[in-house]
């Protein structure tokens, strides 16, 4: 009897993931723009700044490549999570929540759905990695793993925030006061060294996304400030915390 229940919960979780995947496949324009945007950062911003700047003897474009991957994960994941506000407005979620599946399973299905979206987009960006000569292709699997864990954290965070808001008005506030600061303070676009003002160094080191960027940069470019295991542990801790917080808030959501 217990086994049957677990199987039903898994089937419910799969159903939610399956739905998200269908939505992902249908929204082609969104996928294209979410991949074109990082490419523009790399080729337009990167070559512009790169014309006069290089970091640790690495071409600036190559240097920010890991940072732009993290940016894609950040924006893609958090917005995916926040999207449940919209689902709730359209009552799509209502039919799911009245089904005999626990909230936790629905939450996990959503998280996996978001991570799948983001990971597939990251894989597409990796296809362009040959254009960046300093990138070590053997580092890609480990980078992908770290970005996947980061995505679990950030989708959970988005869902947690989405559970708290009833309207889309919160989107702007979250973008301005959370997502952009997380991005700019992650070392995605500049190196974290002693040249940075002291206060900025402090903020950057408090930002969990910094460790994702640092870890990915370490395995792809062999440039890093923290050992990989530190990056990995911080990111994993961040993911576990956000996942727990998100599942609690999602379960309590009206």
């Amino acid at each position, binding site marked *: 009897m217990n086994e049957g229940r677990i199987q039903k919960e898994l089937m419910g979780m799969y159903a939610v993931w399956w739905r998200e995947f269908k939505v992902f496949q249908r929204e082609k324009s969104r996928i294209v723009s979410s991949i074109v945007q990082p490419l523009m950062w790399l080729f337009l911003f990167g070559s512009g700044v790169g014309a006069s700047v290089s970091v640790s003897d690495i071409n600036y474009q190559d240097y920010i490549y890991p940072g732009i991957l993290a940016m894609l994960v950040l924006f893609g994941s958090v917005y995916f999570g926040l999207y449940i506000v919209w689902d709730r407005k359209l*009552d799509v979620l*209502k039919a799911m929540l009245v089904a005999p599946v626990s909230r936790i399973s629905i939450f996990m299905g959503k998280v996996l759905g978001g991570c799948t979206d983001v990971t597939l987009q990251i894989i597409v960006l990796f296809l362009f990695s040959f254009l960046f000569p300093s990138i070590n292709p053997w580092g890609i699997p480990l980078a992908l793993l770290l970005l996947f864990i980061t995505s679990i954290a950030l989708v959970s965070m988005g869902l947690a925030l989405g559970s708290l808001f009833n309207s889309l008005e919160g989107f702007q506030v979250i973008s301005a006061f959370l997502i952009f600061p997380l991005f700019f303070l992650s070392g995605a676009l500049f190196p974290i060294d002693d040249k940075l003002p002291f206060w900025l160094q402090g903020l950057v080191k408090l930002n969990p996304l910094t460790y994702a960027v640092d870890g990915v940069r370490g395995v792809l470019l062999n440039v890093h400030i923290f050992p990989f295991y530190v990056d990995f542990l911080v990111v994993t801790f961040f993911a576990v915390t956000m996942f727990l917080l998100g599942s609690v808030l999602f379960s309590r959501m009206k």
Partner: protein
Amino acid sequence: MEIIKTSALTKIYGRIQAVNSIDLSIHKGEVFGLLGPNGAGKTTTIGMLCTIVRPSSGSASIAGYDIIREPARVRRQIGIVFQDPTLDTVLTGRENLELHARLYGVSSDIREARINQMLELVDLHERGNDITRTYSGGMRRRLELARGLLHRPAVLFLDEPTLGLDPQTRARIWEYIKKMAQTEQTTVVLTTHYMEEAEQVCDRVGIIDHGKIIALDSPEGLKESMGGDMVAIRVKESPLEKIRALPYVYEVKENEGTLEIITKEAHLHLAEILSIIKDVECVEVRVPTLNDVFIKLTGRDIREDSIEDSGSWVDSVARYRQRGS
């Protein structure tokens, strides 16, 4: 056998008593209608029975499972079509049903067949592979009905299944509901404020107003409680007392130049009633509708804004439509 039982079920929102101590007992296989005006508490009652609204007090059970203590088991017994549409408009009709089948743990070996069967029941098998965003309102509603039934629930809740649809579509949806109740042996609990339509499908009707059930019986029983046929006569001067004195007249009142009479067997007595009145402008005779029952119980009309043909007409001697007041 009773499948739904509520006792003193109550929901309070701030100062509003949305549902006020409702006691219901609904039998297996029955089509039960909850009728009432806007804000009467229909959706809230259904919400509590579906375990998505927590009662303030009182209790209820579905198929023997308590809605507060065993919500997961209750959910497995029920299907629901919400008042507001909840289809996933990014998915096709078939995908909506697939999603639902998985959420309800319908095993994969029967899923496909069951989905086809349901699409056929609501005549959507040809449009099953279209994205539901391209469906008309009536098609969406039909798909929601199919979805509600997909997992063979013991009880199907339908909250205003025909609201906002045109009369033809409404008629078809009621047909499906009747068909479903018969072929699937499902207990159906529905809400509506189309009284005439409820009369045709419901085995029993509970009239709800201000969160309270104020009458509960079969449609026939409710109408019989009115005491007879309804006669409305437009007159210049009204011999109110003389008519009231007639032995077969149950009730009479005057309303802006119209005498409203409730009488037994109007077809036998109309001639005599008319002979008492001198200047008859026009006469209308009909059997009472549930709306008449509602007016009698509450003093208000259930339909605030829409004036529709009410009820069926019987042997009217002279049949005029009264327009204006």
